[in-house]
């Protein structure tokens, strides 16, 4: 599978009569964007904000971030299962608008669970260093739900993590809206020549190079449009992620943008043919309160790595309650098979007595730490707030000074590999 990704590097965004890219500037036709979104009756309104790095703006209730991409040639289209048919992608040529993100901004709706929902994005000031989207030119879509969708203000969530069916359904709609807008923006470049083109192909390698798989512990994302657990894992080619096969925001702090640009896979691609033979990616995830489920999913993930012939596995882990055990079991299963593992992981320690692991296996002896979930960061007052009147998890005034945890900053705790934040333990 060979994918060419053509980049249009964007340095400025503005509203204008017609959506298009010229000379590094993205012009956004706001009315057209609104029309696209409001075609879905889930929404009573949507505001379109252009938000730029350095502005004195705080976006609250931020959720997913999506990079504008459009497939110009090759089978299928971007965001399969949402914007395009759900058939396999990852080949041909895809255009991207570099430096731009479409942001999903939405207050929690009734029935939506708000645990770890807080995601604040400061475009300037001390908070900006923690979120990559303080460096992108953002098209922030702020959604107002159709009130008739939520007949009663308080409902019992059936799914503790996902919330009610109505909330899940609405969240799918906001995800879809962002994907549609992201595709629409990039589509404007369909007939243009990109600034540069990068080719992604897992070419044959010298047999002496060690075979490496990426084992990606995802969480309740959409894969080719399906919200589905992966109790037996599944194999994907990294190019599928670059074309938007895996989308949606979840509490593992991941965003679609950083799967379209997954840095772990990009670094493995960089090393491919030089120090490794990158053989593919295993996605795995299950909701596993039961011991047997944990054993099953972790064993299956390791088995897929084995079937790929992997000698090494780079794990993107989830260090949260239930899932931490699955990540660690997967590591143990791999190491038992002789597959050497390295793990990208978040410290969730609460105080010095807490080593920061929900669960730790001695085999996890090669960990890259992406920082500490409960590190306290003080955000100064801001001139402007986008995204609602209230924070998701506190009564504090969103415009004022806020002391937050690192996890409350938008995607600051993602293990998708892009961050340079880290913690060392003394």
């Amino acid at each position: 599978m060979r994918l060419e990704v053509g980049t249009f590097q964007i340095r400025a965004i503005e509203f204008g009569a017609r959506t298009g890219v010229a000379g590094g500037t993205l012009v956004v036709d706001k009315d057209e964007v609104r029309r696209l979104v409001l075609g879905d009756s889930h929404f009573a309104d949507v505001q379109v904000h252009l938000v730029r790095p350095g502005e004195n703006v705080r976006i609250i209730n931020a959720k997913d971030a999506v990079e504008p991409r459009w497939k110009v040639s090759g089978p299928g289209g971007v965001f399969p299962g949402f914007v395009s048919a759900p058939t396999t992608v990852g080949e041909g040529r895809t255009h991207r608008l570099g430096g731009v993100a479409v942001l999903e901004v939405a207050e929690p709706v009734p029935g939506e669970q708000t645990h770890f929902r807080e995601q604040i994005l400061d475009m300037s000031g001390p908070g900006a260093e923690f979120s990559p989207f303080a460096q992108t030119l953002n098209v922030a879509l702020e959604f107002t739900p159709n009130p008739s969708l939520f007949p009663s203000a308080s409902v019992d969530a059936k799914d503790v993590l996902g919330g009610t069916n109505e909330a899940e359904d609405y969240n799918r709609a906001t995800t879809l809206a962002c994907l549609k807008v992201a595709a629409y923006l990039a589509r404007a470049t369909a007939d243009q020549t990109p600034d540069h083109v990068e080719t992604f192909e897992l070419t044959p390698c010298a047999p002496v190079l060690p075979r490496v798989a990426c084992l990606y512990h995802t969480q309740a994302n959409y894969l080719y449009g399906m919200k589905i657990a992966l109790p037996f894992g599944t194999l994907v080619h990294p190019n599928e992620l670059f074309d938007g096969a895996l989308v949606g925001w979840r509490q593992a702090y991941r965003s679609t943008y950083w799967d379209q640009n997954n840095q772990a896979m990009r670094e493995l691609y960089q090393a491919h043919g030089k120090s490794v033979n990158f053989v593919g990616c295993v996605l795995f995830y299950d909701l596993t309160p039961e011991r047997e489920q944990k054993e099953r999913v972790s064993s299956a993930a390791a088995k897929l790595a084995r079937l790929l012939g992997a000698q090494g596995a780079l794990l993107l882990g989830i260090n949260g309650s239930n899932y931490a055990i699955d990540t660690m079991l997967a590591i143990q299963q791999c190491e038992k098979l002789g597959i050497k593992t390295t793990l990208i992981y978040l410290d969730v320690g609460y105080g010095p007595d807490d080593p920061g692991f929900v669960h730790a296996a001695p085999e996890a002896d090669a960990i890259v730490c992406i920082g500490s979930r409960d590190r306290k960061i003080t955000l100064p007052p801001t001139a402007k707030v986008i995204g609602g009147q209230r924070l998701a998890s506190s009564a504090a005034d969103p415009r004022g000074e806020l002391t937050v945890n690192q996890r409350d900053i938008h995607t600051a705790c993602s293990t998708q590999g892009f961050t340079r934040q880290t913690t060392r333990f003394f």
Partner: protein
Amino acid sequence: MSTIRVVHYLNQFFSGIGAEEHAGLGPAKKLGVVGPGMALQQALGEGAQIVATVYCGDNYANEQANAIDAILALVSEERPDILIAGPAFASGRYGLACGELCVRAQDRLGIVAVTGMHPDNPGVDLYRTKVHIARTRESAAGMSDAMKVMAQLALKLYARVPLGTPQEERYMPTGRRVHFVAEQSAALRAVDMLVKKMSGQPYATEWPVPSYSQVEPAPPVQDLTHAKIALVTTGGVVPRGNPDRLEAAYASKWLKYPIGELNDLKPSDWQSIHGGFDTTNVNADPNRMAPLDALRELEREGAFQDLADELYTTTGNTAAIPTARRFAQEMLKELRANDVQGVILTSA
């Protein structure tokens, strides 16, 4: 540049007084080095001098009120720059005394204080976040090595030279976290680390997993049919309404509730307030977390003699180890007072 003044603390055994029979010895002091202090002086080199050795029996140090303060007073008399205590190796009472003494020396005298213990020493869990503890071998066979490590740590701390990681400098992790922005992305660092690991080259994890001390398991219950057992849970099971406000996480206490008259736990009367998992199933049937019904059945069948009259409960949601240990100590007093011989402990 004046010589750094060091005081060395030892217990009754290492100070040469005697073994267990002298563990009740009160605090005393000798000028200069005593016993293994020679090895410590050698490790310290010329820039530092052990001006005095303070010693005390382990039982006295642990059991007498004001013992640590009395020891500290003797230390303080020498106006030291540094206190080095032990090493205590795996000896629990010695370790606890060393740990507590070092903490107070830091706090009250404002001096550098360092000790040394084997990872299994109970003093490690209690003191590692407050005091630098050199990692030692289990017994005095590791003495000279322990002295080297303690001396290096102490001198570096005195000179305010930033310490390397616990792995590099061989001390127990203190839990102190330093946050910074690395040169390279996590992804690049991870790929580099993996390549090294696969090729057998040395690599260093950024974050070592904790190694937990091992304990000597208790002997089994000898005659279960005539034994009393107790039911303890960390699943946060409490009477409905949580009348004593047990916390859903970071529990500050444990509680006990009478179950002597009960054959099971009814959902109308009991619940779980544990914040770390979905308690729906347990709330529908609390026996799923605290299996009283099954225990009563087995009690009737004679599998064991008696079930303790109280259910002991707390929330094990990220309870720090020192807290959990304190709970266990407190519960133990009650369990022993009630002739309990074995515990069934349930958790998530």
